[in-house]
């Protein structure tokens, strides 16, 4: 096994709008890079096997399981983590939905769930219940039974399409 300089990499990302560059081992997974190097612990680290989806972050606009991507692979990418959902106008409609509809209990799955839900609504602003369940099928929640998560996403969808109409009116 070689331990030359190729085992270390420099990774530059834009995370939630901020440019960051950090050195790390080539084998460092993106989830640990985000938590340990960028100090953003809102992204959770769960099953380690790309099953549970708590580590989902947005990479160049697409949700990705960050336990199954090397930090090195994200060099040059634009990342959005749960910390990046809130804007100057306040909580993102998805965050409001999870709050209003009681879309979380322990909260462990919530960051990944919200990032995946945001992407779902960007692709499909008015999803059916089935489409929401299918779209979030890579995210596990052991508390809610999913019912209130579905309601939270529906709340966000309505809120976002209402503000869209308001904006175009």
């Amino acid at each position, binding site marked *: *096994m070689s331990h030359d300089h190729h*085992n270390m990499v420099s990774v530059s990302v834009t995370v939630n709008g901020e440019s960051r560059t950090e050195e790390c081992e*080539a*084998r460092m997974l993106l989830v640990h890079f985000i938590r340990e190097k960028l100090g953003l612990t809102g992204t959770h680290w769960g099953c380690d096997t790309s099953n549970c989806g708590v580590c989902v972050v947005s990479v160049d606009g697409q949700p990705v*399981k960050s336990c199954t*991507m090397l930090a090195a692979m994200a060099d040059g990418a634009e990342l959005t983590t749960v910390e990046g959902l809130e804007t100057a106008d306040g909580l993102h409609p998805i965050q409001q939905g999870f709050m209003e509809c009681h879309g979380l209990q322990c909260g462990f799955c919530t960051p990944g769930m919200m990032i995946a839900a945001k992407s779902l609504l960007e692709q499909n602003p008015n999803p059916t219940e089935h489409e929401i369940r*299918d779209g979030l099928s890579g995210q596990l929640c052991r508390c809610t039974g999913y019912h209130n998560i579905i309601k939270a996403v529906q709340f966000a969808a309505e809120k976002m399409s209402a503000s869209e109409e308001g904006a175009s009116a």
Partner: protein
Amino acid sequence: MQTPAPFGYERATSVDHAIQLLEQLGPEARLVAGGHSLLPMMKIRLAQPEHLIDINPLAAELGSISIDGDSLVIGAMTRHNDLLASPLVGEHFPILQDAERVIADPVVRNRGTVGGSLCQADPAEDLSAALSALHATATIRGSSGSRSVPVRELHVGPYETVVGDAEILTEIRVPIRNGCGSAYEKVERRVGDWAIASAAAVVWMDGGIITDAGVGLAAVGADHFVSPAAEAALRGQQPTEDVIVAAAAAAAAECNPSTDQRGPAEYKRHLAGELTARALRRAVARAQGGQ
């Protein structure tokens, strides 16, 4: 915490560069595309390459889906979600979208690639069965040029392909022929899991007769992911229920499932037959609907 063993990391900037790196770094180097099969294996140290060559920068060069003459060409770096969303794929080969809908979950499909799945050569891999049934060919490139291999000859065993140490799978070509209908059926323990068993069916029809057929099977120990006996039972026949049931029985008899945590061998054999019949009925209906 599961972490891969240390490795040297290289990033390929072109297909030629990737081949050059493979030659330079030797047989302990591996290409990584989406990484959703390789990285989990590296975390539990089932795979321990000394070097990883990241080919994600080749997504533009190898990631397109197009028609070339009488073939649908799928670049090896095509992400699963892009295959699922492609109108060209839906128009010609709905079987690939049937299969994509049940490969992992939408987030994993954002990263995983068609070429990566084929080269991982998991015995339960869905596209291997579907593309084998479609009589697709794989284009493999090395420093001395490209060669073409039928997908049904790509796999030489579990996790083993004919792609050489210093070669890269660049594209899949699926022949487009008239009168084609295709479908994929899978049973899994839970959403997003590997198949307990799955079946791929393709028929080419002319004047109410099946002129050619492809029957693929995943997760049930079928040699090269196909059932030649089932295909022989279909060729030259009208697609009656009797013919379909006979072909399904041939597929069930020909495969070689083993008992594991996903179920007993006999259950999987039963599924192989039943899913072959269901896929064939849908493939025939699609072929007739398209005529």
